[in-house]
């Protein structure tokens, strides 16, 4: 069993009368890269700020390595934060910025110097020691912020949307570097973002946060392929969502009819006739086929877009009110308005239990 480094126990946060975070419990393991992912305003940053201590907890407890730190001031908490806009000290050089925390903790100068040098070379900022933040690019400022955090040698680093102000290319580079850095340092990174790509590429585990609670917690693969709620399915990646009713059941297969009138075979999971289900199908799991078989329908291609590696299109079917999102990885050319058979493989359908929403 992995060691729990941070435990949130029924944590709630109230602003005025509204709960921003409701009864949230979460175990974070030593050395993992955990991402809190959610839309803006979902409370993910509040969770991070409560772990850092910059935000007080209304109810519940926070433990760091088994020790209750709920009421410990951020000044004494052994965690560090990388802020969204990096929050570097503008009047200090790169060196002084990185040295700040060590100076506050009264680390002896010779040890501090060595640690700063190590941190600087780790984030590849050698030669930048005497520059001021205003003389650095966004990516460089980001590196200073990271160095300032890791130089403290604490076990946990909190990153608050730390990449979102960088341009796309730099962001991709930093994603890889951040992940490498985390593995090398064997530190626990808790990363907050609203960007699902970032979450999927970097994380060991993702916690999907919505309305102040955790919707789903799991590896990127689990989250992507087995969303447990409609929110997760919709938030992560693209998906086709069907509302359906069970019409007939056999031993292994349940036959359902969607609102749009598609008759689909799905894996039976002790469904009863008239059970309401929500079906989720990822666009890349839908196949374009030549001949009719089970779960196959005819439709008309619209909005065909070819972008090199893959082709995206929508397929209208039935009464043409709804279009399926389809992503193909083959290089075959399709014309808009052409008729095709599309197949929704039984195995690729994720079923959410009772049709709640």
């Amino acid at each position, binding site marked *: 069993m992995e060691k729990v480094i941070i435990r949130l126990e029924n944590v709630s946060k109230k602003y005025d009368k509204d709960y921003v975070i409701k009864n949230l419990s979460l175990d974070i393991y030593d050395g993992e890269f955990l991402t809190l992912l959610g839309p803006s305003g979902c409370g993910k940053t509040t969770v991070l700020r409560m772990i*850092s201590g*910059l935000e007080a907890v209304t109810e519940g407890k926070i433990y760091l390595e088994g020790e209750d730190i709920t009421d410990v001031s*951020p*000044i004494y908490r052994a965690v560090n934060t990388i802020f969204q806009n990096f*929050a*570097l*000290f503008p009047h200090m050089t790169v060196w002084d910025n990185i040295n700040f*925390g060590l100076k*506050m903790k009264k680390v002896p100068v010779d040890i501090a110097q060595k640690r700063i040098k190590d941190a600087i070379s780790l984030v590849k900022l050698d030669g930048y020691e005497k520059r001021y933040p205003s003389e650095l690019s966004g990516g460089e400022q980001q590196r200073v912020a990271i160095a*300032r955090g890791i130089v403290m040698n604490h076990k946990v680093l909190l990153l608050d949307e730390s990449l979102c102000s960088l341009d796309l290319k730099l962001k991709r580079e930093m994603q890889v570097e951040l992940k490498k850095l985390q593995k090398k340092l064997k530190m626990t990174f808790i990363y907050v973002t609203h960007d699902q790509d970032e979450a999927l590429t970097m994380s060991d585990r993702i916690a999907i946060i919505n309305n102040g609670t955790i919707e789903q917690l799991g590896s990127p693969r689990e989250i992507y392929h087995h969303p447990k709620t409609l929110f997760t399915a919709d938030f992560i990646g693209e998906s086709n969502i069907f509302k359906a009713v069970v019409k007939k059941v056999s031993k292994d297969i349940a036959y359902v009819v969607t609102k749009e009138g598609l008759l689909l075979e799905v894996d039976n999971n002790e469904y009863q006739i008239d059970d309401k289900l929500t079906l989720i199908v990822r666009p890349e799991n839908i196949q374009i086929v030549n001949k009719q078989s089970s779960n196959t329908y005819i439709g008309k291609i619209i909005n065909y877009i070819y972008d090199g590696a893959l082709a995206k299109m929508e397929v209208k079917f039935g009464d043409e009110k709804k279009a399926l999102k389809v992503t193909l990885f083959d290089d075959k050319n399709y014309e808009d308005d052409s008729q095709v058979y599309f197949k929704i493989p039984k195995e690729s359908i994720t079923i959410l239990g009772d049709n709640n929403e």
Partner: protein
Amino acid sequence: MNRKKAFQIIVTLPVVVYSLLLILIPIVYVLFLSFLKSDSFGGIEYQFTLENYLMIFDIIYIKILLKSFIIGLLTTFICICISYPFSIFLMDKSETKRNLLIKLVMIPFLTNSLIRTYGWIVLLRKSGVVNTTLSSLNLIDKPLNLMYNNLGIIIGMVYTLLPFMILPVYSAVSKIDARVIDAAKDLGANKIKRFIHIIVPETLAGVFNGSLMVFIPAIGYFFISDILGGGKIMIVGNLIKNQFLTARNWPFGAAISIFLIVFTFLLIRIYKKIGGKLDELGGL
């Protein structure tokens, strides 16, 4: 194009005329006066001399200058000591509260400062509000000397000049990114260390700006030293006023004035040297 230029001239003309007539010409006149001789009847002899400037370095006047500087520095220092806590206190208050408190700071500006200074007599004199309150609380046996001395002058100066310090300091403090303060907290800096290492260096320009606006009037506000110092205490402001109105030695008064102007410019030069930006001084 020509019409545009004509328009530009028309709108800027009043300001140019105003500056020329009421600022530049008087200063040039004062400069001119400062190099002339005064005769013994309070008149002016049109004869070049440096005597007026040399006279400033007479021990009597050096003492007055020193005293003025000390009063000015103390006033400035006390104003800084009040402005920082006030500005930091305002930092995490809601917008409405902040606006209200800043308006309260501004309210005294609506009344003439001379009248407000007279108001202090009611508070500070031996049978004034402060002394009667303290003695009725049995905190003092005999009334404190709160005015007609240096203390009175400093109280008056701080009171009159405080808004000029609070506004720039508050403006500088409120410009600090809250996340920078959070970052300092996160890295283990307590309140005092955050103040010394983050807030002070980030707001130096504001403090210097405020210091100029407090220190320079503080060495010149003769009416405060007249009223609350009881006319016994002379600061540079009184000295200049006396040269023009009482002693009738206009050239010497002019020389001290020019001396003060040069001194002010020196202060601004120092500010620039230590890396301050001029536009942060509000276009000085």
